[in-house]
C-alpha cells in the first residue's frame, strides 16, 4: 500500500510542478521579430534617400535607393552574378571549414596540454586581435595572386576565434559535472569525450560565430586585393564597379555582401538558440 501511495503523491507533486508553460503562436512570434527589423530597414532607406536628395554628391557618385535596387534587380537576372556569389561562397565555406579543423585541433591540444597552453595561449589571443588584412602582403608573397593566398588569410582570421571558443568552453566546464563524470568512472580521454567536449559546445558555437565574422571580413579584403582573372567574385565586382564609377553596382554589391553576412549570422543564431532551448539555458 505504502509504495503505491508514495508513487501517487509523487506523481501529484510532479504534475503540479510541471503545469503551465504556454507559447504564443508561430505567426505572432514571427511578426513580433519582423516588424522592428522592417522598420529599421525603412528608416535606413529614407535616410539614404535624404542624403542623396541633399545634393552633397552628384547622383552618378552616390546613387539613390531606387536606382540601386533597379540595377540590383537587373543583375539578379544575370547568370554572372550568381557565378560571382558562388565563387565567393565556395571560398568562404572552404576557408571556414579548414579554419574549423585547424581551430578544433589547436584548441583541443592547447586546452589539454599545460605546456602548450603556456606557450601558445597568449599567442592565439594575440592573433585574434591582429587585423587579417595585414597578412595579405605576406600571403601574396608566399602564394602569389592565387586563391591559396585568400584561403590562407581566411584561415588565419577565423581559426584563432574558433580555437579560443573551444578553450574557453573547456575551461568553464562546470566543476560539478566533472565530479559527476569522475564518480561515474570516466577518466582522461573518456572524461573529455563524454563530459568536457559536450559541456564546451555553447562556447565553441560562439567561437564559430565569431570565427565566421572574421572569415567573411578576411575574404572580402582578400577578394579586393587578390583579383584572379576570369573568376568573378563579389569582391572583384566591388573593385570593378569602383573603377568604372558604377555607383549603383557598387552599392548593390555591398548590400548583397551585407545580406549574406546577416543571413549566415542568423543561421548561427538559430543554432545557438536551439542549443539553449535543448539545454534549458534560456531565462524563464
Amino acid at each position, binding site marked *: 500500500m505504502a509504495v503505491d501511495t508514495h508513487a501517487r503523491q509523487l506523481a501529484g507533486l510532479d504534475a503540479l510542478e*510541471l503545469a503551465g508553460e504556454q507559447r504564443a503562436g508561430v505567426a505572432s512570434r514571427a511578426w513580433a521579430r519582423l516588424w522592428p527589423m522592417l522598420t529599421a530597414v525603412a528608416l535606413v532607406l529614407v535616410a539614404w534617400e535624404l542624403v542623396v536628395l541633399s545634393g552633397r554628391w552628384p547622383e552618378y557618385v552616390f546613387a539613390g535607393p531606387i536606382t540601386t535596387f533597379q540595377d540590383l534587380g537587373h543583375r539578379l537576372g544575370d547568370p554572372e552574378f550568381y557565378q560571382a556569389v558562388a565563387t565567393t561562397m565556395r571560398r568562404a565555406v572552404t576557408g571556414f571549414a579548414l579554419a574549423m579543423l585547424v581551430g578544433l585541433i589547436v584548441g583541443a591540444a592547447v586546452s589539454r596540454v599545460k605546456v602548450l597552453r603556456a606557450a601558445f595561449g597568449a599567442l592565439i589571443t594575440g592573433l585574434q586581435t591582429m587585423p587579417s588584412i595585414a597578412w595579405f602582403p605576406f600571403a601574396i608573397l608566399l602564394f602569389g595572386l592565387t586563391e591559396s593566398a585568400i584561403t590562407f588569410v581566411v584561415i588565419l582570421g577565423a581559426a584563432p576565434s574558433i580555437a579560443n571558443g573551444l578553450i574557453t568552453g573547456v575551461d568553464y566546464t562546470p566543476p560539478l559535472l566533472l565530479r559527476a563524470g569522475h564518480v561515474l568512472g570516466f577518466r582522461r580521454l573518456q572524461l573529455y569525450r563524454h563530459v568536457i567536449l*559536450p559541456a564546451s559546445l555553447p562556447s565553441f558555437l560562439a567561437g564559430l560565430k565569431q570565427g565566421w565574422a572574421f572569415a567573411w571580413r578576411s575574404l572580402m579584403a582578400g577578394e579586393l586585393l587578390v583579383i584572379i582573372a576570369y573568376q568573378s567574385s563579389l569582391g572583384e565586382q566591388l573593385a570593378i564597379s569602383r573603377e568604372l564609377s558604377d555607383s549603383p553596382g557598387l552599392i548593390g554589391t555591398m548590400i548583397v555582401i551585407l545580406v549574406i553576412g546577416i543571413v549566415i549570422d542568423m543561421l548561427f543564431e538559430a543554432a545557438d538558440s536551439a542549443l539553449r532551448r535543448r539545454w534549458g539555458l534560456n531565462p524563464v
Partner: protein
Amino acid sequence: MTTQVVDRTTAVRLEAVSKVYGHGGNGLLALDKVSLSVRPGEFVCLLGASGCGKSTLLSLVAGLDRPTQGEISTAGRQVAMMFQEPALFPWLTVSANVEMAFRADNLAKRERRIRAGEFLEMVHLGGFGKKRPHELSGGMRQRVALARALAQSSSSSSSSSSEGGAVLLMDEPFGALDAMTRDLLHDELERIWREQALSVLFVTHNVREAVRLGDRVVLLSSRPGSVVEEFPVELARPRRTDSAEVAGLAATITDRLKEEVLRHGH
C-alpha cells in the same frame, strides 16, 4: 574481474584519515584522524555544522580526492555518489543521463536503455526518459540523479555485484528541496535502500533528517573535522520526521552539536 576479496563485515572503512589542504604552515587541516566504518547494508548519517569537512570526507571515499594520511577502503565495492545538486548532463535526455552509468559495462545500446528505464521506474519517473533535465522540477531532477546513482551501484563493472552491497554516498542530496518533496524522497530512499541492500553514507546538516534516515548518526566537530560522538538510532521504521521519537533524539543530538559549535565561539 578484480581479485580483491569483498569484506563482508564492513562496506566502507576509514582509518585515521586526515586531509590537509595547501602546504606547510599555511595548510588547512580539514579532517583530523577520522575513523569510521559502515557495515554492509547500514545507513549511516554524517552530521555536523559547516566546516566539519563532511563533503571532503565523501569526496575522499568517492576517490575524487586523496587523503593526506590514513587509509580508506571500500573493499572492492561499487561506489556511487549523489550531490546536493542533481549534476545531470544538460545535453542528454533523462534516460541517456542514467545510461551514462552503464558506459563501462559493454552493454548494447538497447539493453542500456531498458535498464535505465527500470531505474527510472524505481524512482517513479518511468514516463520521463525522453525529457531533458531542465524540463523537470528540482525534486524530479534529484530523483533522476538518484536513479543514475542506483544504476551505477548495480553496474556489473564491480566485482561485488553478486554480494549485493554497493556503497551510495549522498552529499546533502535533499538540501535544496521543499519539505514535502523531501519527506516523500525520504520514504523512497528508505524503500530503495532496503530493496537494493545498499550501504549508505549520507551527509546532512539537518538533524531530523539524519535521525529519520540513519541506523546510526555520526556527529563531526568543525575545523578540523573529527568524530565527536556516535548515536545509534534504534527507532522502528518507517519513521516520520515529525514524530515525537525522532524529535526527541534530534533534540539530544542538537544539544551536543551546539556544544561543539560553542567551542568555536571565542
